[in-house]
């Protein structure tokens, strides 16, 4: 049984933001509720008001805008896994969404809610960082874009201000020849280690033009591992493939892995190394 709360049902982002500003800590945005209601049931959080953001209907569209895919924050995981546009332009994201939690969570859980709750053991944030996505935060009549790699500050903490609303996720469509791969490892309900790689090769497909690597779930927040990227960038495909274990070690150390029920720190760092090798090979095979 949940504690009693009052339901607010605004129909615009400005209204949502105003309610959050007015009621502060005693109000919270409610979308799919797949994380929020669990925390409320556990008694870990209490709110006097839930702001039902699903009334702001224009937040659940997926659109293409020049070389970018714009994803509304209220898109459910299920909508994204089935979206023709996402499947065509960002197949790695569609595949990730297909494997979030279970079909019932995917049915009502939203991408925006997932990102804003910032549970350490989650999937989308990691891939969005590797894709160089930007998150649009709005309040009142103000709007700003936060790069995904700066969005996740700490466990359960994002860069959003208390009265800001995440409205859109902007993902650039990767330039070719490129390969994107997200892999996760876990045996509990939530993933224990997640890793995303975005590789762009030169036109001759012989060398790494650009590479982005992000690690999630192992540490308190998903993060980009620039050190491992720098190690691989510019190398020939052969050289990079040969030295990927070293890059994996660097990525593991940089992941800020925490020892917990999902595994010890060194175990997680090792898994990072394994996932980097596999996802890098997968991404390379997409390029050729």
């Amino acid at each position: 049984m949940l504690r009693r709360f009052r339901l607010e049902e605004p129909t615009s982002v400005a209204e949502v933001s105003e309610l959050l500003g007015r009621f502060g800590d005693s109000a919270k945005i409610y979308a799919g509720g797949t994380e929020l209601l669990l925390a409320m049931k556990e008694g870990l959080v209490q709110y006097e008001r839930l702001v039902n953001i699903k009334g702001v209907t224009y937040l659940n569209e997926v659109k293409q805008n020049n070389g970018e895919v714009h994803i509304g924050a209220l898109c459910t995981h299920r909508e994204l896994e089935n979206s023709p546009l996402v499947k065509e332009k960002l197949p790695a994201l569609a595949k990730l969404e297909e494997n979030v939690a279970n079909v019932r969570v995917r049915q009502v859980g939203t991408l925006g809610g997932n990102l804003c709750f910032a549970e350490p053991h989650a999937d989308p944030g990691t891939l969005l960082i590797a894709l160089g996505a930007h998150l649009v935060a709005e309040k009142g009549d103000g709007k700003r874009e936060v790069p995904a790699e700066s969005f996740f500050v700490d466990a359960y903490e994002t860069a959003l201000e208390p009265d800001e609303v995440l409205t859109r996720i902007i993902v650039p469509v990767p330039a070719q020849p490129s390969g994107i791969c997200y892999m996760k490892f876990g045996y509990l309900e939530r993933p224990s280690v997640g890793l995303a790689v975005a590789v762009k090769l030169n036109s001759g497909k012989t060398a790494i033009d650009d590479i982005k690597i992000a690690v999630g779930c192992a540490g308190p927040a998903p993060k980009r591992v620039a050190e491992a990227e720098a190690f691989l960038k510019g190398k020939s495909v052969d050289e990079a493939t040969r030295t990927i274990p070293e890059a994996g070690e660097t990525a593991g150390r940089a992941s800020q892995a925490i020892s917990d029920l999902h595994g010890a720190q060194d175990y997680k760092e090792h898994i990072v190394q394994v996932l980097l090798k596999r996802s890098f090979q997968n991404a390379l095979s997409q390029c050729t």
Partner: protein
Amino acid sequence: MAMTTLRHSDLQTLPISFTLNGKLQELDVEPHELLLDVIRDRLGLTGAKRSCDVQVCGACTLLVDGRPVSACTTLAFEVRGRSVMTIEGLAENGKLHPLQQAFIEHGGFQCGFCTPGMILAAKALLDQNPHPTEEELKHFMHGNICRCTGYKKIIESIMAAAKNISEATH
């Protein structure tokens, strides 16, 4: 200690109407009521079970607009204007649904606790994908947990039902 922002006048009753197993249902609910509690305790339909309570096991699966949701983690007012199906609504005029028939014939349940959720999830699967491969079936049913059967018979039952349904419609 922060002062509460709520006043007595803030207490809400939300009148909702939805179809339940094909029949119109009209109820007043409070915002914090969970769908599982309304279905089980207020409407007396106890097929859906509270098991893990964290939407991991699927024993509370209900179909809302034909799609599976965890009733334990759904606020009751969310079904306003929608259609809800529970396991009690699957059989028509006393005739078992092919899935129910298949689960009986193929031994798809032992204690039966997970079964209402299993069958409803399988229905949602077959409604969307009438001829799933075993891989597709396993992926869709991944969130419905059974402690008794080891899943083999459940898979057999669903595949058999899929065959029966498609044969019946051709």
